[in-house]
């Protein structure tokens, strides 16, 4: 399948001299949900803004559906819907009018039925005649989504969609996202919450200081996360493990003072109980045991601090 979004060597240096993106390469496949995960100031918004035409790149290339965002901006942008990080809406207009406006702005012929279905899917239908300024913050955010969907984009960008959003609205938002994915819409969302990336994404790209550190299937990242580590401190130092433990994934560390055992928490049996009794059977006396899990958070923090070093 062709990539719907291809980014090559994208750099951005703002007029202030700050380099917000230092060479980003990324390919996104049609129909996937990609979470762009990174701390504040990582360059997420800058990346999205360049793709959508709000910020001029310093160098590099971006193609949307095969169309260059500079030379072929009309075709490229027609495919994109953007939900910005900050709420920005015309306050004195009605919900219906601002959403209808968005569709027209993208050159699509008027289609009241489509706008109605978008408003209904976002539970905004009852508010269609209300002025935007009368709405709550959560509703305003939904209006932003409705605007982005008004022209039936193939790719939807959600820049920190859950910032300041309550649990219920968040769930509703994920339902909408799932519905869009079912219709083949590609979704790219930025977040600095790991749980959020976990919850919704197919793939996760970790970005920090203007660079993509990792792009991986969420499932594989989760598999790494599923790994747990059992650390067994020994009463007495041993020189080597008895031969019968050779193929059990044990590791002797700390000059023979401790043993590491890796296991998968999602397996039916972890093998901890039998390991412990076997160790006792060999006359190895335990002093202490502890377990730890390598979470996505840990992977993320590790990547980010490696990058900073």
């Amino acid at each position: 399948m062709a990539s719907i979004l291809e980014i090559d060597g994208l750099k951005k240096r703002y007029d202030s001299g700050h380099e917000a993106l230092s060479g980003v390469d990324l390919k996104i496949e049609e129909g996937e949900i990609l979470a762009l995960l990174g701390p504040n100031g990582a360059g997420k918004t800058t990346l999205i803004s360049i793709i959508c035409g709000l910020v001029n790149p310093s160098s590099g290339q971006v193609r949307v559906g095969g169309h260059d965002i500079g030379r072929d901006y009309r075709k490229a942008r027609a495919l994109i819907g953007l939900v910005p990080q900050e709420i920005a809406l015309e306050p004195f207009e009605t919900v219906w009018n601002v959403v209808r406006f968005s569709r027209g702005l993208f050159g699509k012929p008027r289609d009241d039925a489509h706008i109605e279905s978008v408003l209904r899917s976002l539970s905004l239908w009852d508010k269609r005649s209300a002025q935007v300024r009368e709405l709550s913050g959560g509703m305003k955010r939904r209006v932003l989504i409705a605007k982005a969907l008004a022209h039936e984009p193939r790719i939807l960008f959600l820049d920190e969609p859950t910032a300041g959003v309550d649990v219920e609205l968040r769930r509703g938002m994920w339902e909408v996202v799932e519905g869009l994915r079912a219709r083949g819409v590609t979704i790219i969302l930025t977040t600095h919450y790991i749980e959020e990336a976990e919850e919704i994404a197919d793939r996760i790209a970790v970005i920090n200081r203007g660079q993509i550190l990792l792009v991986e299937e969420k499932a594989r990242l989760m598999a790494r996360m599923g790994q747990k580590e059992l650390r067994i401190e020994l009463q007495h130092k041993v020189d080597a493990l008895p031969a019968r433990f050779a193929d059990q994934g044990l590791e002797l560390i700390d000059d023979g003072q401790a043993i590491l055992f890796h296991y998968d928490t999602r397996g039916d049996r972890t093998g901890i109980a039998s390991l412990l009794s076997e160790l006792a059977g060999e006359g190895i006396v335990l002093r202490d045991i502890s377990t730890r899990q390598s979470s996505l958070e840990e992977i993320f923090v590790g990547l980010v601090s490696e990058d900073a070093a």
Partner: protein
Amino acid sequence: MNWTAIYAIYRMEMLRFGRTILQSFVSPVLSTSLYFVVFGTAIGSRIDQVEGVSYGAFIVPGLIMLSIMTQGISNASFAIYFPKFIGTVYEILSAPISFLEITIGYVGAAATKSLFIGAVILATAHLFVDIEIAHPLAMVAFMGLTCLSFALFGFIIGIWAQNFEQLQLIPLLVVTPLVFLGGAFYSVSMLPPAWQTVTLFNPVVYLISGFRWSFFGLADVPVGLSLLAIAGFTLLCLGIIWWIFRTGYRLRD
């Protein structure tokens, strides 16, 4: 040309106009009436006629010009400054449309409002004085071009302005004085010769003179020159806007 997008912008702007229609209607009617009371009655009682035209009628073209110039600037500059200010400009910049389409949408709407106001003032003036229009087609053309070029100019100011003071600065410090000194309420020939020469450097003189000619067949400067001046101003504004969108000046980082 993406006419659907142009119409979307135009319609949104006209909706805003519609929400404030009363204000848009009442304020020119009121200010025109005030001008007639002050200038037409107070001054008109001393200046009987200017070159064979009653003073009350003589100031009508200048009054209309004054309003459509200032309204054109303020409507168009606000139209683009406001989205920048509240952040909704993101949508305009992310849409698959060219600078020309954006400009036509916003400037077209601002010019339409100015035309409407110009027409309201003309109708109001008609209640106070008899006006016969010598060259109606030329009158409409001058009025249309002035609405258009000053809306373009306002659009540039709106993009350039980074705060409300800057938004007000040029209209207040440059345009209003130029219009008042541009022969809105007097004929340039009434000035001492030295001032007449100075006045010729004021571009607004050419616009008002041409417009007045279309009413009374009287002009301070040749009509051709007036037409040239306004066409030149329009082209200059278009050129600047083209440059703005090509470079992203104050719109795209």
